[in-house]
Each structure stands twice: as structure tokens, then as C-alpha cells.
């Protein structure tokens, strides 16, 4: 591997008495699609803002391309950000918005026009150059924001929950657009989100953060199948968490739990049926054990109609021993 593009080296961020980022060590490679993911207040957005130079670390250092970013102001970094609010300039038209970064870098007017035009074309917004921002739909604004950030041909693109304001069907489409763009350009994407589905659908590597620290780093598959701690198991997807008599914890993914109305074997757990939730093609059953623990089981529709449980009905939940995943302390 060559020198990583971005290095967070023991980065700490405090606001008065509040510590937003406790201690962050993270390297991001060239051309990687990394998602920083976690509940609100976990420090993911603060980390992104520090990378862009919009906040200064209280301690530690951030290096981009091997160069320390200490005392490098935001406007001298090449770290364009796609904002949650998009932050398009309402007093400029679409083309002027896209040209803004080039203008600030002193690119001549004819060249700005050509390059902005190329990017609008690429984003399927060719005929929208003269439009006002408030005449665009949410998805179109998104494309303009992307074009505005990418027109300067940066080495990396930062994205701060860019899809959170979109309708569900548009989110899926924009995920496709983003993934394709990242592959084609071969540049680094650092994507901040609280949405597991967005992060898992696009990222090469997921960084799960909680309370200002990294809880786990891994591919979406690793994080999903082998959560490192209880925090990750609870945050990521539908995991059941159990405590062994010796106090150690393990998780079982909901889709590894099978449910039957007759006791299948000795290991099965007796529970009563609480409720069901439709999640696309699968259904999640919420069960309760005799000791009051909740068990989530993801099953398909055929299984549900075969069971057809009444609330309070007795069901048996079971899983193979290989479905049990030990959780670390954290």
C-alpha cells in the first residue's frame, strides 16, 4: 500500500467541558469509499468537519497526503464537502453555483463555463444551467451540489448525510449515482451517515463510532456478521443479544433465528408472540422469552402464514451454535 491519503492521528475535539471526539486514529486510503456511521452525537460529523478544516482539533493531528493540516485554513484544503442542507447559493443560478469553486481558484471565465457545463452534462443537468436553485427538485439540487463539489477535480469528496432529506426511492437512486461516480472517478469518498442501509450499500469500509470513539472498523459484511461489541450489535441491524451465565455476551442475527410452533429440539427457547413488522420481503417477529428477554426473528412470508400466530401464542425459537457470535467488552 502507498501512503494513506488521510490520517487521523490521535485526534481529540473538545467544546468546553464536552468532548465530541475522544480519541480518533483512522487512516483512509486513496480511492476508498469509507462510511463514518453512528448515532447522533457520536462525533462523526465533527470528525468530517475537522478534516475539512471547519473545526480545529483540540489535540492530535490530521494529515492529508502526508502533510499536516495544522494551521491550514479550510479554503486552502482540497476537501469539498456535500452538505446535509446542500448549502447551494440561492442568489446564484445552477451554472454559477457549479462554477463557484473554480472562480475562487482564479480559473478564467470561459474555462469555468466549459468545465461547469461538462459536469452538469455528466450529472444529467445539461439544460438546467440557467435555472434558479429554488426551481429545482430535491434530487436535482443533490446533483448540482455534487457537480459543485467535484468540478475542481478533488482527490477526495466529503459527504455529510447528503441523502437524509430525500424520499426513499430517490435515496436508492442517488446511492447508485454516488457508487458509480466513486468508481469512475477513483477518488476517495468519506461519507457520514446514521443510516446503516446507506453505509452498507455503498461503502468499502465502515467505521462505526459511538461516544466520540471508534467502536469497530470493517467491511459492511464483517460489521454485520461479526459485531465487535454490544454497542455495534445493537446499532447495526437486527441482532439479538444474550448474556451467558458467566456474564459474557453473544449476539445472534435475527435472520439466523428460526421459529416453529412445535418444539424442534432441546436447545429451542420457548417464547410468546408479541408482534410482527413487515420489512420489505421479510417479516420480523418480536417474541418474548419466559425471563422477559426480547427475541427478534426475521422470517419469510410463507413461514409466517404457516405459523399464523395469535398474540400471546407459544412459539419456539432456535438457532445453530455457529450463529452465536461472542461480543467483546466495550
Amino acid at each position: 500500500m502507498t501512503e494513506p491519503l488521510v490520517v487521523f492521528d490521535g485526534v481529540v475535539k473538545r467544546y468546553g467541558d464536552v468532548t465530541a471526539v475522544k480519541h480518533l486514529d483512522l487512516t483512509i486510503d486513496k480511492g476508498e469509499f469509507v462510511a463514518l456511521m453512528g448515532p447522533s452525537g457520536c462525533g462523526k460529523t465533527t470528525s468530517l468537519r475537522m478534516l475539512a478544516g471547519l473545526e480545529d482539533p483540540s489535540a492530535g493531528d490530521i494529515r492529508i497526503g502526508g502533510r499536516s493540516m495544522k494551521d491550514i485554513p479550510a479554503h486552502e484544503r482540497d476537501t469539498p464537502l456535500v452538505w446535509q442542507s446542500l448549502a447551494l447559493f440561492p442568489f446564484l443560478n445552477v451554472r454559477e453555483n457549479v462554477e463557484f469553486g473554480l472562480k475562487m481558484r482564479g480559473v478564467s471565465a470561459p474555462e469555468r463555463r466549459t468545465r461547469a457545463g461538462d459536469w452538469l452534462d455528466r450529472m444529467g443537468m445539461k439544460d438546467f444551467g440557467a435555472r434558479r436553485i429554488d426551481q429545482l427538485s430535491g434530487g436535482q439540487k443533490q446533483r448540482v451540489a455534487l457537480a459543485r463539489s467535484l468540478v475542481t477535480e478533488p482527490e477526495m469528496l466529503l459527504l455529510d448525510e447528503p441523502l437524509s432529506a430525500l424520499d426513499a426511492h430517490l435515496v436508492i437512486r442517488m446511492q447508485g449515482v454516488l457508487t458509480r461516480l466513486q468508481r469512475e472517478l477513483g477518488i476517495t469518498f468519506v461519507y457520514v451517515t446514521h443510516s446503516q442501509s446507506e453505509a452498507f450499500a455503498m461503502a468499502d469500509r465502515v467505521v462505526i463510532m459511538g461516544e466520540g470513539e471508534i467502536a469497530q472498523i470493517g467491511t459492511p459484511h464483517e460489521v454485520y456478521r461479526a459485531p465487535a461489541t454490544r454497542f455495534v450489535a445493537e446499532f447495526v441491524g437486527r441482532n439479538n443479544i444474550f448474556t451467558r451465565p458467566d456474564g459474557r455476551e453473544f449476539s445472534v442475527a435475527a435472520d439466523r433465528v428460526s421459529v416453529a410452533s412445535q418444539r424442534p429440539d432441546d436447545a429451542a427457547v420457548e417464547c410468546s408472540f408479541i408482534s410482527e413488522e413487515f420489512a420489505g420481503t421479510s417479516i420480523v417477529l418480536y417474541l418474548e422469552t419466559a425471563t422477559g428477554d426480547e427475541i427478534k426473528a426475521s422470517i419469510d412470508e410463507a413461514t409466517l402464514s404457516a405459523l399464523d400466530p395469535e398474540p400471546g401464542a407459544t412459539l419456539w425459537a432456535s438457532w445453530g451454535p455457529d450463529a452465536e457470535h461472542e461480543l467483546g467488552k466495550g
Partner: protein
Amino acid sequence: MRAVLLLYLAAVFVFVFAPIVASIVFSFNSDRFPTIPLGSFSMEWYVKAFSDEGVWVAFKNSLIVSVCAATLSTFIGFATAYTDYRYGFRFKGAYIALALLPPTVPLIILALAMLAWLSQLGLSGTLTGIVIAHTVLGAPFAMAVTRLRLSQMDPSLEAAAWNLGASEWSAMRHVILPFCLPAILSAFCLTAAVSFDEFAVAWFVSGLNKTVPVMILEILQGNVDPRINAIGTVVFLTSMTLVIAAQLLLMAKGKST
């Protein structure tokens, strides 16, 4: 109940506007005294009023004062509003309260204080003195208008400009100022109107350099003179134009956000 309220509202409008309308009507009346029935339509009083060189001088003074005071007020108002928007600091509440204080001081007290202070500076009786006094009066209005506009701005907008390579000054010039432009123009019109109309402070401070409202009082003290109606109509139309322009700018800006 609703009808009573509407009636009350109508009565308020009549009470406020009747004297102004009467003044405008009588300014075009050929009779020397404001009596009903009206005489014939006439521009006589306008011709008489504006053939007096003193009236022209007063208008020129008012124009100079209001343009200068409006420029200064708008600049100070913008700077104060931006400081409030951008920075957090200790005693910020006190800072804002101080910036918004002048309109809460009764005009006569402000006028007296201005007279005392400007005399000490040797600026009493000069146009510069009136400009300073009117800037004090106008700046809080300019600040309020700009502050409102800044509060409508996406908080990420300025940072987005930095992020795209704009230095602090570039971001000010290419993002903050264009965004605030309607409010800045509106504040300019509004403070110009405040200055153009203002009588009490100008009367105390002006001395020989009379502005239009001061001159009107001096004519009125002499006798009933229909020229006053003519001059008053011009002043009213000027102020109304400025205030309406300010309001239109404020409304247009609401749409573009």
C-alpha cells in the same frame, strides 16, 4: 365582533391619513386658506414654494444628510448584525442591547444630548453634526433589517464558500453580501426615510443648516402658508417611496430563499 374590529381599523387609518390627505388636497387648491368648498385646481403653491431659494437649499441639505446618514447607518447596521451572526463572545447580550438602544430613548432627550455632545465637538450647527445624529438614529433599524436577513441564511452557506476555496474576504464578497443585498438596499431606503423625515433632532442640532422638516416649522411659525402643503406633499411622497421600496425589497427577498 369582526365588524367592530374592522370599523376600528378603518377609524385608525382615517385618523392617521386624513391630515395627510387633506394636506395633499389643499396643496392643489387655489385658495389661500384651507376651506371647503375647494377653489379650483392649481399648481400655484408648488411654483411659489420652489421659487424660494431657501426651500432648495433645505432640500439639498436634507438630501445630503439622508444619503450620508443612510450610507453610514447601513454600514454600521450590517457590521453589527454580521458580528452578532458570526461570533459568540462574552457580553454579547449587552452588545446587542446597546446596538438597539437609540430608538428606545425619547427623541427630545436624544436631541438634547446630541446638541450638548456635538457642541463640545464643535459640530453643532453643521451638516456633519446632523449626519452623525441621524446615523445614531438609523443604524439600529439597519441592523434589525440585516439581522433578520442573516437569520434566514442557511448556517452552512458561508462555510460552504470557504470549503470551495473562498477566503474569509471572498466569502464576504461573494456569499454574505449578495445574500444580504436586498436587506442592505432596504436598510438604506429605510434609514434614508428616517433621516429625511426626522424633525426633533435635526431642529436641535441644525442651526443655520436647515433640513426640510426644520424649514417647514419655521415657515409655519410665521403664518398659515399653503406652500407648506406643497412642500409637505413632496416630503410625504419621498418618504413613502423610500419606505415602500424598502418593504418591497424585504418581501422580494422572502421569496428567493
